[in-house]
């Protein structure tokens, strides 16, 4: 991998983020309901609204507002939450850590489960195992998070079994067991659809690789099947799997909004829904920008991993 490639990819990410700041700003600018009116309620006097608008800088033209917003972000200042009277950076920071722990656990378990499942299905193509994995992946890919979550709650958190808490959050520093029991249901909900998606991709990549000439050559020269799979087939189907996983991060970041809302997990998603309901613009802007940054970075990282895994990737 050349340094030039890295620099070009990094510049592309920065360009994407600049476009995102424009898009986020444009959407929040045209949101109905002036922020000052929202804070004061509908009975605020015109003078009070005008005074607050001046204080928040809402009376300035849009490009001055945009640049002061971007300038603030670059120095780590995301403004003040309109509803919570706290700096946005503090509110969003805590929520980010909670979301990251949930998303991280979901993503890691998905990777551990989905890749072997896909390989298993590809090796046993046309058998019962393949069929079961295939049916599972279609069911998983067709259930929205709120349906999965509701069904999981029904079976595992209901009065019949009552195995797991129906929602809420216990900090890892408080109690490891408490954290674990609260994270299982939301992480499973997030993971189901991704497992379905990734295992299907790995299966199709792996099947294609398994029917290639170099695998036939490896078999013909008398290598044991285990070695053919591990040393020849698997490494060559991993690069596309990494690409799919990084695309699915985008899906995960959307899914987390619904899942956190259902399981009362105090992360970015739940905060976002609260902010949307209350027109808390600075919080909405910060969360959107943050999620887009995470997504763009995950794509960058996956491109780098793919370039390392597959030397044939041209750095165009």
């Amino acid at each position: 991998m050349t340094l030039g490639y890295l620099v070009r990819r990094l510049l592309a990410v920065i360009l994407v983020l600049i476009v995102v700041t424009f898009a986020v700003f444009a959407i929040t600018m045209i949101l109905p309901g002036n922020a000052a009116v929202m804070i004061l309620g509908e009975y605020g006097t015109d003078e009070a609204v005008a005074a607050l608008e001046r204080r928040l800088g809402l009376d300035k033209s849009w490009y001055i507002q945009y640049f002061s917003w971007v300038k603030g972000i670059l120095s780590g200042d995301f403004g003040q939450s309109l509803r919570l009277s706290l700096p946005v950076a503090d509110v969003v920071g805590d929520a980010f850590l909670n979301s990251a722990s949930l998303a991280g656990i979901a993503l890691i378990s998905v990777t551990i489960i989905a890749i072997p499942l896909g390989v298993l299905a590809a090796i046993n193509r046309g058998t019962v195992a393949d069929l079961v994995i295939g049916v599972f992946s279609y069911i998983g890919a067709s259930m929205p998070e709120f349906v999965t979550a509701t069904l999981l709650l029904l079976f595992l958190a209901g009065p019949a079994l009552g195995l797991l808490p129906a929602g809420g959050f216990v900090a890892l520093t408080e109690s490891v067991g408490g954290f674990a029991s609260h994270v299982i249901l939301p992480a499973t909900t997030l993971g189901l659809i991704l497992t379905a998606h990734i295992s299907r991709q790995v299966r199709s990549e792996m099947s294609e690789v398994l029917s290639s000439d170099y695998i036939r050559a490896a078999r013909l020269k008398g290598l044991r099947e285990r070695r053919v799979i591990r040393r020849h087939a698997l490494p060559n189907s991993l690069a596309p799997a990494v690409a799919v996983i990084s695309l699915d991060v985008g899906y995960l970041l959307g899914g987390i909004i619904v899942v956190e809302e259902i399981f009362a997990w105090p992360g970015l998603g739940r905060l976002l829904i609260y902010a949307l309901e209350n027109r808390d613009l600075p919080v909405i802007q910060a969360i959107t920008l943050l999620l887009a940054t995470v997504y763009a970075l995950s794509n960058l990282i996956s491109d780098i991993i793919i370039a390392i895994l597959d030397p044939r990737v041209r750095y165009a």
Partner: protein
Amino acid sequence: MPKAFRTAAGFTGIVLLSLVMTAAFFGPFMAPYDPQAFHPASRLEGPSFAHFLGTDQFGRDLLSRLLHGAPSTIFFGLGSTCIGVGVGSVIGVIAGTAGGWIDSVIMRVLDGLLAVPELLFTLLIVTFLGGGMGQAMLAVAVAFTPGMARIARSSVLSIRTREYVLAAIARGEPSHYVVLREVLPNAVGPIIVESSIRVAFAIMIGATLGFLGLGAQPPSTEWGLMVAEARQFMFRNAWTVAVPGVAIALAAMGFNLFGDALRDSLDPRQSQ
């Protein structure tokens, strides 16, 4: 029937799709009861001969509600996909045929929009437009547009250098002829395949918006809203959430299976 639809997966897709489309077109006429009628004597009941899928917290017949909700749930997915695919394809074809700086600018903007996760994008637009069925549909369509534009563009780009297109250009055909008669008809395949899978996704997002209270509003019987309204009673009668939940999954699965079979039958690599 093409070979891809004769496999178990393709066949299941066709069967599910026909069921779903029948419910979407004729559901309201097939319902045994008024979906809003209360049957106080039989509240939160499981399946019986009187109520095939049971009743909800007001004793309303779940099967009738499901059948009445089918059009809004399914046509939401179809409608938002059509708008998103239409607008996205036009943008993608413009970018792909124009090339140069127009292409670069369009692509950079699309990259930026694609960096915002789809559900988040949809939520932002719904909040901007205000909740409701039409607004939610438009929001999903807007969120789908960048992705579809990318696919349309790449499909145009791969066709632009084919010999028959070069031949048309060499013959001196006007550029609108080349685009409309040579490039577009051949670029349509991948777009149709992608959009049939997108419908599944649109149905899922639409139901999610209904569930969050940002899409269909009561007294609609949209399936996501049905799940949301029944949630607090689900431990007393699991059917209240299971019926609409499973219906959403089956509808999405129908479009997923159908789309995959369509892709297999159009992809020459898989046809042997």
